[in-house]
């Protein structure tokens, strides 16, 4: 016979916990204030701003070439894509057509950066779940991409490789060979990721059905990128508003409809495969030509408002420029994917356990400098 359980007043209390700004699983200086009932998360309140650098304000005193190096520092894992957004906006405003070679190289670079970013996400997701070994396997493979980047751009993480009108430098002669080697290598290694984590029963138990987000909610929260596509929201900018050379390559937009942590996870894993497909299609036929068009040393955008979006590794990254015809923008606004994705955290985690919060946070893959700017 079921007896009524009387919960004493003291047991009913909510405790609030500060998770962060220094916490192993907030991936940076994010502070989450949790209201807990036992282990159950009742409410999550993200407090941002611990790494706010005022980048949007700083852009107002910089020329467009100089702004590029700041966009690297938003989402440092998709530095190339962020650069591309500014470059594309400026090129669009000035009505410049960049050479075909630039487009193809930019596409390849973007996709390499996407793979590298997803690899790092896989590392940290595995670590969030407690599987530390994932972390080292992912970093080991990412190193190969960083080497490719270093050889061509001179830096490993914050490359500032694009500039309005083209690229800072031409490709290194070794580039094509190295990329091809990497693809061969990574195609062999990627199944290992699946064996280690994707197919693991503990991981599936912890990710399946956790942090459900319906398509409608995903749209209304503005969740984009793999997080949005995990909920079935077709939001791939590369498909819908092609830029670079994306209209010339064949690739699938990875979509999953479950909307839980596992589907967000699988979207990213599959995206790595798609990215490799894209690179494979382009790497052998990079057209010859200039790596940049000649630009005036001082770029002045005509008066007006410009918006350009690109698909960064974590979602749609947008740049909104208001120009008054000066060499500096009058106002510049970045639409960062992480900020929107983070806003859904409360809805996603409500009623789950702390361990789920960590897993969900990992599946959203936020990068704090991009949230705070």
């Amino acid at each position, binding site marked *: 016979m079921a007896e009524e359980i009387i919960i004493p007043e003291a047991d009913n209390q909510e405790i609030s916990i500060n998770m962060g700004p220094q916490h192993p699983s907030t991936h940076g200086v994010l502070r989450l204030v949790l209201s807990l009932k036992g*282990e159950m998360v009742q409410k999550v309140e993200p407090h941002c701003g611990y790494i706010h650098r005022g980048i949007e304000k700083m852009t107002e005193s910089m020329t467009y070439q100089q702004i590029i190096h700041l966009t690297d520092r938003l989402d440092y894992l998709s530095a190339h894509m962020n650069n591309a957004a500014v470059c594309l906006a400026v090129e669009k405003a000035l009505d410049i057509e960049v050479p075909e070679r630039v487009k193809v190289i930019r596409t390849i670079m973007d996709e390499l950066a996407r793979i590298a970013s997803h690899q790092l996400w896989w590392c940290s997701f595995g670590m969030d779940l*407690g599987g530390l070994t994932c972390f080292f396997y992912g970093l080991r493979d990412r190193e190969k991409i960083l080497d490719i980047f270093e050889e061509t751009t001179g830096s490993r993480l914050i490359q500032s490789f694009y500039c309005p009108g083209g690229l800072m430098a031409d490709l290194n002669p070794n580039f094509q060979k190295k990329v091809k080697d990497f693809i061969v290598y990574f195609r062999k290694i990627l199944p290992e990721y699946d064996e280690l984590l994707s197919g693991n029963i503990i*991981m599936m138990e*912890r990710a399946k059905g956790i942090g459900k987000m319906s398509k409608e909610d995903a749209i209304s929260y503005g969740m984009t990128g793999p997080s949005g596509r995990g909920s079935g929201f077709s939001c791939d900018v590369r498909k819908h508003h092609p830029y670079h050379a994306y209209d010339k390559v064949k690739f699938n937009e990875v979509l999953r409809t479950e909307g839980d942590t596992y589907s967000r996870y699988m979207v990213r894993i599959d995206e790595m495969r798609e990215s490799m497909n894209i690179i494979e299609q382009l790497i052998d036929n990079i057209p010859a030509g200039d790596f940049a068009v000649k630009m005036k040393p001082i770029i002045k955008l005509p008066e007006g408002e410009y918006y350009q979006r690109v698909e960064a590794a974590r979602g749609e990254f947008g740049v909104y420029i208001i120009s008054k015809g000066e060499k500096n923008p009058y106002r510049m606004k970045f639409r960062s994917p992480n900020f929107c994705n983070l806003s859904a955290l409360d809805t996603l985690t409500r009623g789950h356990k702390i*361990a789920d919060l960590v897993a969900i946070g990992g599946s959203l893959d936020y990068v704090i400098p991009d949230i705070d700017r």
Partner: protein
Amino acid sequence: MPFTFSFYDFTGFTQWIDVTLRGACSPFWAVLWEMVIVGVLFLAFYAVVGLYLVYAERKVCAFIQNRVGPNRVGPYGFFQTIADLIKLLMKEIISIREADKLLFNLAPFIVIITSFLALAAIPFAKGLHPIDLNIGVFYVMAISSMGVVGILLAGWSSNSKYSLLGAMRSGAQIISYELSVGMSLIAICVLAGSMQLSTIVEGQRDLWFIFKGHFPAVTAFIIYMIAATAETNRGPFDLAEAESELAAGFHTEYSGIKFAFFFLAEYMNMFIVASLAATIFWGGWMPLHIPGLESFNHVMDFIPPVIWYVGKTVVIILIMMWFKWTFPRLRIDQLLNLEWKFLLPISLVNILIMAFIVLMGWQIGL
């Protein structure tokens, strides 16, 4: 009594010490001296094993993760953990303002003492067995489950929410996994017909119990491995200190040598659990004997029992490390599900089958 020493049988050696001491002083002092000798030996043993388990874990995980691991202090980083210990000894012990001072300071000692006590009943080799209790299995289990008191106290007295959550998780976890550990051991006790560890080891003279007991023994072994990993708070069951969720769980607020106590105790518990598994399932110090193969058995007998014991323990420890560095961590409800829905019913049925096998006299090699 003449002095005898052999790597194959320590009985003569230990008895020689006993007789000599009793001849030299009154029985009271003789016992006291024996206790001191054993205590000091154990302290040294504890420190060395604890430190080198930490080192071994770091090396093993490094190899698993494609790294080289500690390699700066001494050759192959052999003295790394000693350097770490010295560092921890010299660190300031931060006192927490609102903490319950007495319990806060007591907790690490409870944890470390329980693991120390459990060591007393482990047979290391023939004749090298501190106390041969007639309920040895029960004793080890009872003592090692005391450790949770220390963990709970640590979590409670730290006055930190992370610590408290970690401690509560740990409480729920250890208390429930205690059952499976016990049940899987009972299955073997049924087979051995005794709870005395020396008898259990002797009973495996012709064949180890894991082979002797058909699949119930294998099942019991697997269950024991899972439950023991959980009981020692190791990954993938390290929820109590899940660093990606609770910073460091119950020992978040500890620093310096008190933190080292927790750390050492964790590794010692792993050692105890592993040597218990080696003793009960794999024959302890008993060499591998296969009935019918006399020459093979003779060759095996040449390897001293201590080596057998250490070898088996190390293999089990390696398996536990392999677990930890492969799997992601479970969630608390899944952890309890695993115990109550899978391990416990299976081990109950397992005991029944085992009892039936013993009753019918179907053991292999009998």
